[in-house]
C-alpha cells in the first residue's frame, strides 16, 4: 500500500507497512466516520496492535487521499455535465437563428401587404 511521505528526511528501511488485516479494519472504521474520536482511537489501536498515534496519522493521511479522490471524481462529473450543456447550448443557438429568420420573414410578409 502506498504511503504518503513527508518532506522530512527519512530512511525508507525504517518504514513499516501495516498488515492487510490492520488496513482492512482501519478502512472499515474510516467508512463509518472519517474522523475518529480519541477513545475509539485508543481502543482501535489496542485491537490492532498499533500506537494510537499511528492510527491517528493513518486517518489523517487517509482523509487527504480520500479528499483527492473525491475531487477527481467531482471534476470528471462536472466536465461531463459541462460538455453536455455546451452541446445543448449550441443546439439552442441554432434554434434561435432559425427563429430569427422566421420572424424576419413574417415581418417582411406583413410589410409587403401594404407596399
Amino acid at each position, binding site marked *: 500500500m502506498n504511503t*504518503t*511521505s*513527508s*518532506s*522530512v*528526511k*527519512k*530512511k*525508507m528501511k*525504517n*518504514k*513499516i507497512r*501495516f498488515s492487510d488485516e490492520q488496513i482492512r479494519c482501519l478502512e472499515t472504521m474510516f467508512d463509518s466516520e472519517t474522523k475518529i474520536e480519541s477513545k475509539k*482511537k485508543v481502543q482501535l489501536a489496542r485491537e490492532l496492535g498499533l*500506537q*494510537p*498515534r*499511528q492510527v*491517528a*496519522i*493513518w486517518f*489523517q*493521511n487517509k482523509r*487527504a487521499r480520500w479528499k*483527492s479522490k473525491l*475531487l*477527481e471524481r*467531482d*471534476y470528471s462529473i*462536472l*466536465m461531463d*455535465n*459541462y460538455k453536455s*450543456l*455546451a452541446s445543448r*447550448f*449550441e443546439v*439552442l*443557438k*441554432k*434554434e*434561435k*437563428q*432559425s*427563429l*430569427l*429568420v*422566421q*420572424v*424576419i420573414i*413574417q*415581418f*417582411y*410578409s*406583413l*410589410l*409587403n*401587404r*401594404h*407596399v
Partner: protein
Amino acid sequence: MKRLGSSSSLGAMIICPNTTGEHNQGNNHVYTGEFQALLEGLDEEGCMEESGGHMAEKKRRLSVDQVKALEKNFEVENKLEPERKAKLAQELGLQPRQVAVWFQNRRARWKTKQLERDYGILKANFDALKHNYETLQLDNETLLKEIRELKSKLNEDGASESKVCVKEEKIVSETDEKCKAATTLNSLTKCDKDASDLHLENLNGTNGIISASVFTDLKDGSSDSTDSSAILNEDNNSPTAAISSSASGVSPHPFLDLQNGSSSSMACTFQFSDPKTNFTRDAHKAYQPQFVRIEEHNFFGDESCSTFFSDDQAPTLHWYCPEDWN
C-alpha cells in the same frame, strides 16, 4: 492528536518511554528527545508515514533555505534527472534520495493543488454557460411569441385587405406591431454570448485539451460562412449597406447583426428549408434581387422603424420584394 506542532502537546507523549516492551520491539520506537523534533517535523499538510516506525535521528526537518532552494528548482522543472539530483543534493547538503523524495512529494502536492484550481475554473465556466443557456432559452421563447403574433397579424390582414379604411387602421396597428418586432429583433440579433466567450484558462492535463476543442467547435459553427444563405447585401462594400463584420473577420452576415467589438464570432449561417428561398451570393444574380440594405449596426433602428411607413421621409430600409416572396 492532530497537527502536532507545539512542543507542549508532545511533552505528554514523551512522558513514558518504553513502558511496554512489545511496542519497542515491534515498532522500533525510541522515545528520545529527538522524537519531539521529529514529531514537530510534519510537513505542511501534516502527513506522516503510516508506520511511524523509524529511527528518530534520521528524520529531521529540512531547513527553510533548503526548502526555498528546492522550491525554486521545482519551479524551473518539476522532474528530476540524475545530474540535477546529485548537484542539488550536494549543494544543499542532503542525500540524493532525500531530494528525490522531496520532488516526488512536491509533485503529488502540486497535482492536488492544480486539480483544485482546475475544478474552480470549470465550475465558474459551467455556471456562466448555464446562465447564458437560460438567457438563450428566454430569447427563443420571445422569438416564438413574436412569430405567432406576426402570423396572426398576417392572417387578419388577408381578410380585410380590400377595405381601404380598415387597411389604414391595420397599417397603424401594424406599425406598432412591426416596431415591436423590430425592437425585438434589434435586441435579439445582437451577438449571442457563446461558450467561447468564457475565458477558459488552460486547464491542466488532458482535460484542458478536451475543453479547448469543445470551445473551438462552439466558437465557429460554420466553415461555410462564405456562402451564407441569407437575405443579402447588394453591395458589401457600400458603407451604408455593409454590416460591420465581426472583429474576427467572419464575412458579413447581413441577416444577423454582428456588433463591432464583439469578441465572439458567432457563425450566423442558417439554411432555409425552402429551396425557393435559398439566397446565396451567387444565386441572387440569377434570382430576382431581393436585397435588404441594412443600416450599419442596427437591423432596425429603434427610431428608424417609424420611417418605414411614412411617405415623406425616406425610410432607411429599402427593399424590393418580388411577389413570390410571400
